[in-house]
């Protein structure tokens, strides 16, 4: 029997770039197939070919053994391909049902939208996936995980035979992932071929049987995941062995930052902590536990309603990030595109934004000095390609992140707050960011890291605070640090019970 989906010798040439080079692999009906690779490996280009956005220069896509021409997204959908994007393409103000019928609404007589009928059919499609979703509710009122499920329900409505998911879980909590994983497994059971793209190897190993690894536009190998280790998969992605690194502590005994009873109006309820010179403090906890909000209070982005902050024994009070920056605190935010970079501006401008006073002591920017410092800091963070005048939007996520770190180095920041430091950053750049954080600590910077990736926290942190419901639920030192220990403190009791009795999605 021919496979449900087959890529046969696909190459895609852009002016001056070969984005895909003779890519061939196949996915059977009912198979969940992982697609792995670093940013720029060609995964997105391949998905765009599958969804009809691009056409291959050479090669073809076969569905159930038949070559198909996917000239545009509508044709791809008609051929039974559904794409579920990383950044969901939905309209929050419209209802769930309206979103599911977006672009091809059910009508009465071709004029009036048949809302009732839409909602009935939407409810049918949702019933199998998550009956708690109300088709008439505005989509914006749903959680991200539920919105993913709405997208999948939409694929069911279209009778999709192939579902491609691009980083579906990048903003989901572990329990939400479990729920989504069940839905995906259910899809596969019904004979749908699923192409699953994710940076999170543990997820891919959890729900996929086979995976194809890409690098530089070509397939490295298609492997049976039961036969290979995560480490060897990473080596295939990166093209070299990434050394398994040991944690090294540079923490000293001097308290640099001391926080007492810090609270915000909503999500943070009385947090006290100390941060020493050269220390890397990890903050773990579920999404919504108040981790991000705590960082925002410390960075002056949001205002604290009560509590005190002392830096080097001196009380400080922040009414804006400017105050925090002046006190030596800088935030590397989670959503780089929205909160980190000014996309049209150069690397140099983005770097200099927080320290304009330094570069323009008499009101006019000293461009020679600015260039010198930019070259120095960007060399320090190993920016690639090393083009300081190029708009930052043209750089990969990892290099944008390096530029933001460079911003705080240029501003003389001594306390760096990282919110999800490696979100959306590929494996190779991840290791670089880790090294950078360690070097900064070794130089005497104090670092706070909020991360959902427990291995990341364990790799980097000298000490971990676990947050739950806006408070510190536990403090773990290196000796007592483990994923299990963190999870035990992070998850509220009730949810843990539910998790135990719930069906297991990961086999």
């Amino acid at each position: 029997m021919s496979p449900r989906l087959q890529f046969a010798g696909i190459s895609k040439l852009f002016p001056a770039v070969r984005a895909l080079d003779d890519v061939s692999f196949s996915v059977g009906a009912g198979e969940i197939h992982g697609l792995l690779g670093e940013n720029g490996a060609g995964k997105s280009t391949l998905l765009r070919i599958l969804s009809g956005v691009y056409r291959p220069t050479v090669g073809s896509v076969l569905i159930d053994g038949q070559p198909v021409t996917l000239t545009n997204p509508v044709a791809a959908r008609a051929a039974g391909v559904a794409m579920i994007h990383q950044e969901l393409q939905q309209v929050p103000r419209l209802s769930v049902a309206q979103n599911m019928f977006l672009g091809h609404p059910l009508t009465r007589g071709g004029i009036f939208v048949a809302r009732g009928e839409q909602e009935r059919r939407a409810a049918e499609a949702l019933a199998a996936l998550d009956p708690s979703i109300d088709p008439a509710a505005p989509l914006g009122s749903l959680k991200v995980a539920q919105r993913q499920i709405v997208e999948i329900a939409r694929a069911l409505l279209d009778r999709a035979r192939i579902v491609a998911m691009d980083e579906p879980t990048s903003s989901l909590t572990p329990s939400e992932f479990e729920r989504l994983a069940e839905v995906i497994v259910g899809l596969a059971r019904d004979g749908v071929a699923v192409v699953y793209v994710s940076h999170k190897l543990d997820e891919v190993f959890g729900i996929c049987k086979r995976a194809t690894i890409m690098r530089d536009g070509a397939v490295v190998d298609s492997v049976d995941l039961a036969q290979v280790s995560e480490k060897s998969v990473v080596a295939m992605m990166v093209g070299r062995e990434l050394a398994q690194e040991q944690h090294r502590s540079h923490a000293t005994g001097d308290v640099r930052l001391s926080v007492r009873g810090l609270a915000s109006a909503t999500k943070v309820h009385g947090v006290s902590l100390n941060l020493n010179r050269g220390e890397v403090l990890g903050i773990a906890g579920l999404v919504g536990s108040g981790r991000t909000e705590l960082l925002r209070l410390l960075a002056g982005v949001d205002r604290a309603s009560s509590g005190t902050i002392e830096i080097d024994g001196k009380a400080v009070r922040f009414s804006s990030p400017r105050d925090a920056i002046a006190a030596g605190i800088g935030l590397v935010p989670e959503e780089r595109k929205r909160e980190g970079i000014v996309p049209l501006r150069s690397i140099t401008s983005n770097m200099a934004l927080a320290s304009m006073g330094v570069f323009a002591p008499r009101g006019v920017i000293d461009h020679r000095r600015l260039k010198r410092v930019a070259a120095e800091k960007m060399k320090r963070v190993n920016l690639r390609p090393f083009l300081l005048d190029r708009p930052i939007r043209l750089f990969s996520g990892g290099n944008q992140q390096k530029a933001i770190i460079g911003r705080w180095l240029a501003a003389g920041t001594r306390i760096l707050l990282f919110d999800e430091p490696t979100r959306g950053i590929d494996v190779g750049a991840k290791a670089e960011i880790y090294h950078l954080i360690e070097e900064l600590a070794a130089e005497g910077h104090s670092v706070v890291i909020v991360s959902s990736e427990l291995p990341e926290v364990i790799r980097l942190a000298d000490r971990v605070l676990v947050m739950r419901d806006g408070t510190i639920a536990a403090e773990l030192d290196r000796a007592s640090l483990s994923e299990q220990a963190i999870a035990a403190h992070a998850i509220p009791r009730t949810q843990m019970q539910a998790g135990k009795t719930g069906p297991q999605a990961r086999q």
Partner: protein
Amino acid sequence: MTDISENTATRPKADFLHRFSMRDAGTLIGLIVILAVFGALVPGFFAERNLINILQQSSINACLALGMTLVIISGGIDLSVGPTAALSAVISASMLVAGVPFPLAIASGFAIGLACGLLNGVLVAHVGLQPFIVTLGTLSTYRALALIYTGGNPVLGLPAGFRSIFNGSLFGLPLAVVIVAVVALVAWIILKKTPFGEYLLAVGGNEEAAYIAGVPIARTKIAAYMISGLLAALAAQILIGRLGAAEPILGNLWELDAIAAAAIGGASLMGGKGSVVGTILGAVILGAMRNGLTLMNVQSFYQLLATGLIILAAMLIDRVTRGRG
């Protein structure tokens, strides 16, 4: 997602040609084409006197457009420049007629411009209202104030001494042109060489990121509106100096020409992008076109048509050359 950027990353050639100066070169080519066309069609178009005429006719719009460019870069818009100019004009004019010393009368006009800009800026930056709506409201408000203050009548009979200030010339150029050239130079320095310029580009380019990076958002926006108000007041002084009278309906639809010049020059109404050089070229393009069409005795209806088509053509060329946004 990142594949596109990775692709362009491998094209180092593009890095030597800076995006902005390339855009300015495009505007310059547009100007040259328009000049060439009129030069061929209109005898005497290239006469020195006519070229100076074009500059003089463009100077008021250029003055407003420079302020507009800064506001647009900050992610806003200032629809109230015309009425701001009118209010500034009638106040200065009535003071001049009453015998108040020139410097004080002119300074008062500037103060009005700054105050109008301050109100716009505060409503946008501190109250958080949308710039389009705020300045639409103040457009009517400031116009009404000018009409109420004068009872709808023009202020006539400005002293000859005042008129000679703005009607003089320097290095063979009308003083108005020289003043606007100086303003343009200052605006260029502000945008390219000062922290304020970087802040404007950052606030318009990504306000949230700029805030977290410590950019003083409110101060930056308010300053942009105040500069726009000040330049509207300057344009008003130049105009009443030339006319010898101040009408409360002066500056009707000025905001549209100013926005047009900025947009032709490459400013993006999304914010975060714009060029002083481009805006000046844009203002001269509009001025040259009107001058040429007038010399050709083309009806004003067609001049309006031409203005509209130029704006659309500039935007289309922008879109096509920029490729995917």
